[in-house]
């Protein structure tokens, strides 16, 4: 319990030291506060290189855009899945459109080929 009390008092003294004060403490804690002052002076802030900072910022911007795009797709999907009837009708219609389109394309290709040769299919 004594250690805990000392730890609390030391914590307050360190907080004062970090705030720029020179806290007055009892002699028992004084060497520890002196050590804290030395450490504070030695562990100076480490400035980040400008190139690294701008490179990381650019990467974060790219990541944000990707996340925004993914969120938009996710929103659309979630909205559509909330109405399964509408999704089924959309599926049926799009399948029909694709089927009609493919049939039309096949007929058009066949017609063009016959027109180019001038020979009806039955006489080849």
């Amino acid at each position, binding site marked *: 319990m004594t250690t805990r009390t000392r730890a609390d008092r030391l914590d307050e003294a360190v907080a004062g030291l970090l705030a720029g004060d020179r806290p007055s403490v009892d002699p028992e804690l004084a060497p520890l506060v002196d050590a804290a002052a030395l450490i504070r002076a030695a*562990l100076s802030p480490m400035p980040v290189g400008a190139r690294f900072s701008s490179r990381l910022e650019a990467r*974060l911007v790219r990541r*944000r855009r990707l996340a925004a795009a993914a969120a938009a797709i996710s929103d659309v999907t979630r909205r559509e899945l909330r109405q399964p009837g509408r999704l089924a009708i959309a599926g049926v219609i799009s399948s029909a459109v694709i089927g009609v389109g493919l049939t039309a394309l096949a007929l058009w290709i066949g017609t063009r080929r016959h027109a180019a040769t001038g020979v009806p299919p039955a006489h080849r």
Partner: protein
Amino acid sequence: MTDLRPADGVQPAGAEARRPTDGTDPDYPAVRAAQADRAAFDVLYRRYLDRVYGYAFYQLGDHHDAEDATERTFMAALRALPTFTDTGASFRAWLFRIAHNTIANARRSRTRRSVVPLHQNIDPPAPNADPAGLVARAEELRRVLDAVADLPDDRRQVVLLRFVDGLTSREIGQVLDRSEGAARVLLHRALRDLATRLGG
């Protein structure tokens, strides 16, 4: 290697670490803004870049490794930002917990690599400074950094989080998954070790 197990006499984080911050977290408005619009994350990035980098540098002792860990930390924070809620940990503690885990992974992955002593990576002082004073200052700096580097892992973490990043004991407890009281005890033990070593 980072050891997250509680040390002797140090209790794991309890309910005290999970109290809401009662809106006292100064970063909370910026966090809410960034959750609504990710572009607002820039504010938090600029506010904490130096401190996260400093924490990584003093842990890893290498500028390139520190940059890598810093980048991973901010990428992970951006990804996880929507999940951040005010459940007791400040944003600062949450961010440094990500940094702590990222750095722990970096340290694990390079255990076989040789690491340059920390004091060799500190930038030299101004060339027109007093040479005798420089030598004495460099020697003191080397002693302090070596003493910090030789601390047991959990005590070193507490010293760095407190003196480099200015976290409170409560926040340090949240980063290291300990109680506030346990973080104070760790700081006391770390400073006692350092006072013994630096005083001798």
